[in-house]
């Protein structure tokens, strides 16, 4: 059985205009846990989707400060991982796990 921790690392695929653009370079974008490290993400993707990952780049998008009825609030931070797959391998992100 795969490690259950993998499911906590990978939160969801990120399906956006930008993510569709990078998919041309054999890269897939995921929302990941904030405390996930690159090696963890690589292990999780390889285990869950059965593909070979050549590189993982991450970014931490800080939540915006929003006001609602005068009260200041802060949106959640979000970590994203741009995963580069080995040549010839694909992940169909829209079908889910």
């Amino acid at each position, binding site marked *: 059985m795969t490690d259950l921790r993998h499911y906590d690392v990978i939160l969801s695929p*990120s*399906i*956006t*205009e930008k*993510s*569709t653009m990078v998919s041309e370079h054999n890269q897939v974008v995921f929302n990941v846990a904030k405390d996930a490290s690159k090696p963890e993400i690589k292990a999780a993707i390889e285990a869950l989707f059965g593909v070979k990952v050549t590189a993982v780049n991450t970014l931490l998008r800080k939540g915006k400060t929003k006001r609602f009825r005068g009260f200041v609030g802060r949106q959640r931070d979000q970590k994203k991982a741009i995963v580069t797959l080995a040549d010839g391998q694909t992940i169909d992100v*829209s079908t889910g796990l």
Partner: protein
Amino acid sequence: MQVIETRSEGLKRELKVVIPAADMEARMVERLEDVKGKVRINGFRPGKVPFAHMKKMYGKSVMAELVNELVRDKPSEILSERGEKSATQPEIAMTEDEAQAEKILAAQADFEFTLNYEVIPSIELKDVSGISVTREVVEIDEKEVEEQILKIAENARTFEDKDGAAENGDRVTIDYLGKLDGEPFDGGKDEDAELVLGSNRFIPGFEEQLVGLKAGDEKVITVTFPADYPAANLAGKDATFDIKVKTVAAPGAVEINDELATKLGLESADKLREVVRGQIEGQFGQITRQKVKRQLLDQLDALYSFETPERLVDAEFENIWRQINTDLEQAGKTFADEDTTEEEARAEYRKLAERRVRLGLVLSEIGEKAEIQVSDEEMQRSLFEQLRQFPGQERQIIDYFQKTPGAAASLRAPIFEEKVVDHLLGQIKVTDKTVSKDELTAEDEADDKPKKKAGKKKAESEAAAPVEAAAEEAPAPKKRATKKKAAEDDAAAE
């Protein structure tokens, strides 16, 4: 798109329609292109959603929509292409297999469905000038008018309170409480009930026992409910009624004069006579028309013979059959009582249904050729007539007619039929013949029997003919009755 005829027997047709998957896909793509600029999906600016993503999200629902549309529009399109008219709504059958349906929605499999229908046979209109009918006209004599007026006058007569014993014809105002074995029963109680003695409105024996009572009297009477009384718990039972007489009133004299007329809202007695005469004429006019129509239809029936769509006949037969069965049930009879068996009756009514369908088709064809239209105004009028029959429920009825598409057609059909008959009457020979009232009504019965007897056993036809006459003419007498009642009400109200 491919249309394959898989069956063509008589009037029945079965078509198989195949729409290739590629076609379906192309249609879907077209649809999606249409909405491309409008959809808003998180993560994308409007109009920038990649096509693959849109297809994944909306493909199925668009496809389902497409299938529905095709199934809705194609049948009529195909039929008009083939130049055929379906008698009923064509039956459409699609694949029942879940996986197959899934494939169709994914545009991986050809979309196929079958159409099952019966065509309306093309009718060649025949020359109707050979048809001749006799119109029987009744001269209304003065006596009848007087009689009718007398009836109205009796209804409108006045009562005056009097002292002394109640006689037959007097009106008493009473409180009564009915008891069965000493227990009051439902519906057996009333206060200030007005009852004209001798009018036989109450159960037999009730009114007779009130004769001789005076205002203020109290009496306990015993009466027996008749065995065929509608309320089962009371039928045939002995019941006692505690009666308290409040007033006794003697009737005023019945006279036909201007005073009576004014009371009914008309200027003079002559005017009243005129109105009543008009009513009677109207009643006979309807019988006359009914008979003329019957003659006309009989001859049309003889003139045309073609295969009738089975489904229409089936539907019509079901209607008749249900009607007959409920009638029999209400009368508490079986087919054996009517001297026939169920099978025989079935065959009998099947023939009747066929005749009706055939005549209906012929009439509609004639009407179409003659460009007979039913105007909105006429529809309105007939709607109001319906409304009049159900006072207090106007709202529901209007709703019903607006919401049920078939309902409007059911209003339209009789009007259309009448107009076609009018049209035909203009083209054929009509001879007038003056008859007496008795002749008019008597022959009505006699007319039916010989026609239905043709080629049938005696026992059957005797049982069937009156029922048939009743079924086919049911609307007319009913209307007559309501009309008459309405007319009387009108007169009284005025």
